[in-house]
Structure formats: C-alpha cells, structure tokens
C-alpha cells in the first residue's frame, strides 16, 4: 500500500499517512469551501488501510484553523480510527493545539466527547 501524501495549500492541510509505520499526520489549515471532496481521498485510503493496519496506529492532528465545513469530515476521519480501535487494534489520536488557543482546545474536547478511541489533547508551547 502506498503512503498518502498531500502538500498543503492555503485552504487545505498537509497530509502524510504512512502505512509502513502507522503514523499519520494532518497539519496546517483546513478551510476549503467543499471539504467533502477533499476528505474523500483520506477516507478511501483509511478504508484500505483498515484491511491491513500496523500494530500501532497514531494519528497526529496539528491544525491551525478549520472551518465548520471541515468539522464533519474530521469527525468522519476520527470515526474510521474509532472503528480500527473497536476492531481490537492499538490506536491513538493526538490533538495538538497552540498554547492558550482555547478554541482549538475545546474543539479537541468536543471530538473526544463523541468518540471512544483513545484521544489525547496536547498543548504545544511556543
């Protein structure tokens, strides 16, 4: 299986999903007008990954901004990690937010409330 690598743009995040190590990264900003289209490729990739996952899967979310159009897509991404966890795999989601950015901290907490997958919320000092 090929890694999924997407370079960032002004409205879309950097994506690096590595099937060899199980370490996934989503970073930058996510404010596209049509998020569904953008996130579909990630969801498709994760569907395939779920067939042969690594022993440990780690998703690192380091978002600066995201719009409400992306918020549901992000939940869908988290749900696929949720399912991987439910299937008995070792999975962790790490949500990073910049120091004092309460909006991003709350957003992480909101997602964490809606999921059963281990979800860590980490403050990054500047």
């Amino acid at each position, binding site marked *: 299986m090929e890694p999924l690598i997407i370079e960032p743009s*002004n409205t879309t995040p950097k994506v690096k999903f590595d099937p060899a190590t199980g370490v996934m990264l989503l970073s930058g900003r996510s404010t596209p007008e049509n998020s*569904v289209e953008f996130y579909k490729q990630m969801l498709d990739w994760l569907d395939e990954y779920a067939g042969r996952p690594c022993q440990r899967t780690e998703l690192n979310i380091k978002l600066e901004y995201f719009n*409400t159009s992306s918020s*549901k897509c992000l939940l869908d991404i988290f749900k696929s990690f949720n399912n991987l966890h439910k299937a008995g795999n070792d999975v962790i989601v790490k949500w990073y937010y*910049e120091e004092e*950015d309460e*909006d991003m901290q709350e957003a992480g907490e*909101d997602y964490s409330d*809606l999921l059963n997958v281990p979800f860590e919320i980490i403050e990054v000092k500047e």
Partner: protein
Amino acid sequence: MIDLYSLYERMHDNNIMLSFKGEVTFDLIDSILKIIEGRLDKMEDDRKTMKKVYNILVECLQNLCHHVDSIEMDETMANMNRTAILIIFSDEHAYHVVTGNYIQNENVTPLRSWLDQINSNTKEELRELYKKILNNEQFSAKGGGGLGFIDIARKSGQKLLYNFQPVNTKYSFFSFQINIPKQ
C-alpha cells in the same frame, strides 16, 4: 464628479479594513481572506484574537457565498443576482464583520428563529448544540449544516446581530454583524 475625498475620509475615520459590494464568488472569498490575513498579521499582536477574527471571517464569507448560491432570482431581481455587501472594520475594542445579502421571504422566519435560538443559548448550551449537530448523520452535503452561526457565536462570545429588511413581495435583505472583542 462625486466627492470621493469625503467618502475616503469617512472610510478612514471608521477604520474600514475592507469593504466590498458586488458579486460574491469562492475565488473572491479566497482573495479577501488573503488580504485580511496579511493585514491582521501587521496590526494584531494577539495571536488568539487574530485566529478568532480569521476563523469567524471564513465562516461569515462561506455563509454568504452559500446564501447567494442558493437564492433563486427572478426578473424583479435580475440585476442583483449573487450581489452582497461585506465590511470589515475595527475600533479600539473590537473587530467588526458586517455582511448583507438578499434572501427569499419564506426563509426569513426560519433564519430568524435559528439566530434567536443561538442568541438565547449559554456558552455551554451552544457547545452541546454544536456537538449534537456535528454528530447528526443528516448533515448537509455542503458540509455547513447550520454549524456556521453557532461557531461564530462560540468563537466571538458575542450575540449575533441581525436585521431583515423587506425589499418586495419575494425578497428581503439580510444584514448580519458580529463583533469580535480585542483581548
């Protein structure tokens, strides 16, 4: 010749960062966001406030675009199709984002009650409402699904200001304002 200097002075005195009236497209929105981001970078030292303003602006503009996108125009409004107004200004205490666009009269009541519902909620209630809609499978294909205004209210911590002005038997003009306090 119009008195351009007095218009200029008025805009200057009101600390207008950007004003636009015309057809709203997604390309235009991208350009506006880039301009404002550059300007905020220079004038706002507090990163938290900067991020709030940017985030709220994204929601306001994408809302605006979806609104003008969904309106069905007939011959009475042919010249105003997709037209909207946007003003961003700041003062000592806050940033202000103001938008205006046409909506169909039948949409006035549902939008008004939605905005009133958001305004009557506490911070915690807004958070619960947001999570409830986020987790609802019946989410609109466009992705917004009504979260935009909740997000604007949550991030600003302020009431949503609005007004509906009847235009004719079919349309009203929807004015919206959100103030984002400076830290």
